[in-house]
Structures are given as C-alpha cells and as structure tokens.
C-alpha cells in the first residue's frame, strides 16, 4: 500500500448507505467556527470604520468607541485561532503539480464538469488558494493592525509608518473579505460541503465526486 499523503488524522470511511466519510474532527470544527465568528465580527466592525455609510454597524458593538476598542482584540483572537487552523491544515495544502492542471481547467471547474478534472486529494487548488491567501493576509493584517492600534502601540511608530499601516490594513482587509466571500460561496455552491464543518462528515458520493484521491487513500488505508 502506498503511503497515504492526502489523509489527515481523524479522516475515516464508514460503510453504509450512503457511505459516510469523516472529514473534520470536533477540535478542527470548533477551531474553524471560532475563526469564522471572529472574522465576521472583524469584517463588520472594520467596515463600520472603513466607510461612513456603514458607520451605523458600530451600533452592533455598543457604539463607535466600543467598536474601536473591541476590533483589535477580536483580531488577536482571529490570529491565534487561525494559527491553530494553519497548524492543522498546512501540510495537505502544499501545492502540487495536479493543482496546476486543475487550475488550467478552471472552466470545467465552474461549469461542474468534474469528470474532466484530475483526481483531487483532500483539498483542491481553489481551496489551497483560499488557505494560503488567508494565511498571508492574516499575517499582513495583524502586523499592520498593530501599527493602527493607537491605544497601546500609538507611541511606537512614526506618523508616516502609521499612515502606511492603515492603508495596508484597509487593502488587506478588503482582499480578505473577498477571499472569504469566495470561500463561503464555494461551500454553498458545492452542495453537501457544509456538513463537513457542522457535523464533521460528508457522504461517500461527495468525496468520490470532489476529492476522489482522498477517498481512494482512505479506503485503501482502511
């Protein structure tokens, strides 16, 4: 048997009708939802201070000063929470040759012609791109965010550095929100995906259709 390269701890196949495949452990799911909740709260509170027409969103956090005070702390939570996801997922997100093939056939991807695509491991190239762009953006956001955190770090940076920080923070945040939209949309569009992060499992058919290489390795290692 070839060494499984696409399998994470906790992944398993269960016979039945339909076949059920464990995709995410309870720990990974809790980790994911803490990250998700903090990212949504960050986006809302950040957008409130980004564009005046969205300032009313500060009401959800108890007003402008509270929004200003709480946003960076949620950022700290997100950073460490995402770090947990990164440690869990980075290995299976390493880029491979088949990812390039998959990307070249992006037309077949968006038109759901999966029979034309190479067999995919635990993550496809799109998921890997979401993973790596979020990883980079969150580092950029936490670093630039410290430069904008007037209350505790205002005195450590020159005004010019703070200007750069706030601009970089805004641009990176817009990009992160766009990546997040792609992530959420893909989960909705590809039916049967969301149960992976809610109940931790998907059907065998889902794994066969979208992550066949992963399924094959799971079965052969059973």
């Amino acid at each position, binding site marked *: 048997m070839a060494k499984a390269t696409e399998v994470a701890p906790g992944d398993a196949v269960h016979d039945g009708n339909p076949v059920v495949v464990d995709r995410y452990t309870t720990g990974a799911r809790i980790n994911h939802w803490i990250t998700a909740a903090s990212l949504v709260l960050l986006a809302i509170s950040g957008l409130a201070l980004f564009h005046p027409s969205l300032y009313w969103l500060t009401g959800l956090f108890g*007003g402008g*000063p509270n929004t200003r005070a709480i946003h960076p702390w949620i950022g700290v939570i997100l950073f460490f929470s995402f770090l947990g996801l990164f440690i869990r997922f980075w290995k299976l997100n390493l880029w491979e040759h088949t990812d390039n093939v998959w990307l070249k056939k992006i037309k077949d991807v968006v038109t*759901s012609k999966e029979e034309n695509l190479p067999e995919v491991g635990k993550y496809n190239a799109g998921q890997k791109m979401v993973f790596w762009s979020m990883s980079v953006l969150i580092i950029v956001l936490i670093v630039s965010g410290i430069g904008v955190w007037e209350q505790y770090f205002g005195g450590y940076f020159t005004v010019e550095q703070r200007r750069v920080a706030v601009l970089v923070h*805004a641009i990176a945040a817009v990009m992160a929100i766009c990546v997040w939209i*792609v992530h959420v949309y893909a989960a909705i569009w590809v039916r049967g995906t969301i149960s992976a992060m809610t109940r931790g499992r998907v059907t065998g058919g889902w794994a066969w259709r979208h992550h066949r290489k992963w399924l094959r390795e799971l079965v052969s290692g059973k």
Partner: protein
Amino acid sequence: MFPPIPNPQAKPIEAKFGDKDLIKRSASNITPAAQRQTQVAKLIDVSKCIGCKACQVACLEWNNLTEEVGINTGVYENPHDLTPNSWTLMRYTEYENPESGNLEWLIRKDGCMHCEDPGCLKACPAPGAIVQYSNGIVDFVHENCIGCGYCIKGCPFNIPRVSKVDNKAYKCTLCSDRVAVGQGPACQKACPTQAIVFGTKDEMKQWADKRIKDLKSRGYNNAGLYDPPGVQGTHVMYVLHHADKPNLYSGLADNPRISPIVEFWKGFTKYAGLTAMVAVAGFGLLHHVVAGANRVTEHDEQEAKRLAEK
C-alpha cells in the same frame, strides 16, 4: 500696535456661530452653510516672541487643563511635546545663521494650524467628530470621537493627541468658545508682546505685510508669511524671519499637504474596496443563477459504495 480686542460685556450674548455654520463635517455629507462667515485667523509673529510661555499657561487656564509635572532634560520645551492637555507648545531652536554668523533663537508656538483643507477631518471615520465652521475654525466634537487616532494620520503638522484617560483626541480649538462671543483666543489675550494677534484673515494678512516690511528693513530679506497653499491656507499663520526655510523652526513643514497615502486611503481605497466586495459577491450570485448548484448524484454515491466495499 495692533488694536486690542475690547473686553466682553458682562451680559450674556448669543454665540456668533454654531452647527448651522458648518462647511465640513467628518464622515458625513452635509450641505455647507450657504454663506460663509468672515474668515478668522490667528497670526503668530515669531520675530516678536520672547518665549515666555504665557500663551501655554493661558491655554491651560482657559481650557481648564492640567499638565503633568514633567522632567527637565536641559531643554526649554516644557512639556517635551504636545499632549492631550497641552494644545500649544513653545518650541525652541538654536540656529547658527551661516550668512551672518549670528546665533539666532528661533521660538515657534506650535499647535493646530486650522487648515482650510483639514487632513484630520478627511481621515476621521466618526460622523461629526471633527467639524469645520465657515469662519475657518476646525474643532473636535468629543462626544462623537471614538479615539481611533485616524486624525493623527491625517494631520500634516502632527498635532492631535489621543488621551490615555478618556481615549478622545485633543487639540487647539482656536478658542472657538471665546471667538463665538467676539473674543480672541486665550493665548492671544495673554501674549505680552503682541507676537500673537487675532482678527479676520484679511486683517491678519495686512498686519503681517506691515511686519514683514519692518523685518526686511532690518535685514531679514527672506521674511515672509507662512500660509501654506498645500492645505489651501491656514487659519493660524506665522510671520517668519526665514520664510524660505520654515523647517528651521523646529521642523515646521516646508510644504505641508495631506499625505498622498491618506488621500489614497480615504479616496480610491474606500470606493474601490466596497466595489470589489460587492463585485465578488455579485459574481457568486450570478454564477449560481447561471450554473446552478454542484450536486452529488446517485451515481457518485454508488461509485463510493462500490469503492468502499471492495
């Protein structure tokens, strides 16, 4: 001597300007006051300043502020920088003039310049936390301030300071409360040499002209008025003996303007950012309408079953 502003009457009078006289309000779309009031200005004649700090004291006194007792490090600046309580600060430079060989003591009263194009107001995300009145005064409205410090990034003169006590930003108000009842700012009132005078912007420019002529007649050929066009002029102006080198005066900006980074952030990024997010979401919606959901088929389930049971 510039004619002094008469003392106020004892009976209360109506404020001369208020919310109806706004021409700019942070993070808000407002209709500017139809008619602008006469623009006011404070003129600081650096050549007449003796560095007594009466203006600093008067500012603390009138605005009911208390500065912490600091540490003497052998320089005249006290405190060492502007603070949330010290809205004005005398800055001292010892300058050895290479042309004359003289040691010149350049003393500049630092504080908010009340820019006609205020960077603080442009950067502020909180509606109504920074306002500009039609007479030119730029004021912070503390009940609307959220303490984010964006005004610091917007300011080309590095003036606002955020308090560690209440997390609100503070700076010189040009004594808007005094000006509203026909008085000049407290610093101007206290200045013993009329290095600080206050009046309409036109009056101040005329007075500055007289002062500059006088300075030129005394050998200061580069004497001039500091009313920087990069921020569309200011409502606090300086008469400088070396107007060709404002930077000599403790780093007074030579050509102040709102930083291009701030302009880009508050201009392009703000609109392009929202557009990008809406576009990505719209693209997703469109894709779903056109391409439909990607569903697992019964065939897929059967294949998986066959594979699993092998």
